[in-house]
């Protein structure tokens, strides 16, 4: 069966520090991968999505970037964190059809 792993679960980082969040999917190949951010009262905001290795689409210009170095690995990064980067980050995958997305358990990022 397919599973999605996301880590770390929680992270406290100082302003100006770098960030790397990792998401991996097991049990499938060539998944579509997504990064969402959830801020209080703002629902889920799509940040990036990828339909294949090296293919990244950015939905919101910001302080973050994404990479997909392997088929089932999706990384969210920042060179210098801002206070406004705080939030709950969720990774999701879909096999490319329309059966619905499967989400990871999320990373709670607090920038201090």
């Amino acid at each position: 069966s397919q599973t999605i792993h996301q880590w770390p679960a929680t992270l406290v980082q100082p302003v100006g520090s770098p960030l790397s969040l990792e998401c991996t999917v097991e049990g499938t190949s060539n998944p579509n991968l997504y990064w969402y951010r959830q801020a209080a009262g703002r629902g889920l905001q799509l940040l990036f999505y990828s339909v294949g290795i090296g293919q990244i689409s950015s939905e919101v210009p910001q302080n973050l970037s994404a990479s997909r170095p392997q088929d089932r690995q999706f990384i969210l990064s920042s060179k210098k964190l801002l206070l406004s980067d705080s939030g709950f980050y969720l990774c999701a995958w879909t096999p490319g059809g329309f059966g619905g997305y499967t989400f990871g358990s999320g990373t709670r990022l607090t920038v201090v």
Partner: protein
Amino acid sequence: AQSVTQLDSQVPVFEEAPVELRCNYSSSVSVYLFWYVQYPNQGLQLLLKYLSGSTLVKGINGFEAEFNKSQTSFHLRKPSVHISDTAEYFCAVSERNQAGTALIFGKGTTLSVSS
């Protein structure tokens, strides 16, 4: 462009009462519709989805939703709620026949069930 509006940010109800969480969408093309539930500090879990066919969709945990194309709505209902249904609920939409495009979510509705 698509958009989703969840008409109520918070819905308080008593245990065993019925509940309806309202969702309206806007899109220039045909869509697929979803409802997700999120418990505190967890990821999102799919409750139900409408892809095609019957407009009344049944999901997990006794929830159901009805797709109404003329009113561009996809309201979520449960005839009798439990304390354990307390969570945040998200309605989402994606364009039909556009593989790879992402889900667009509403801002969520917090359902609070009390005894």
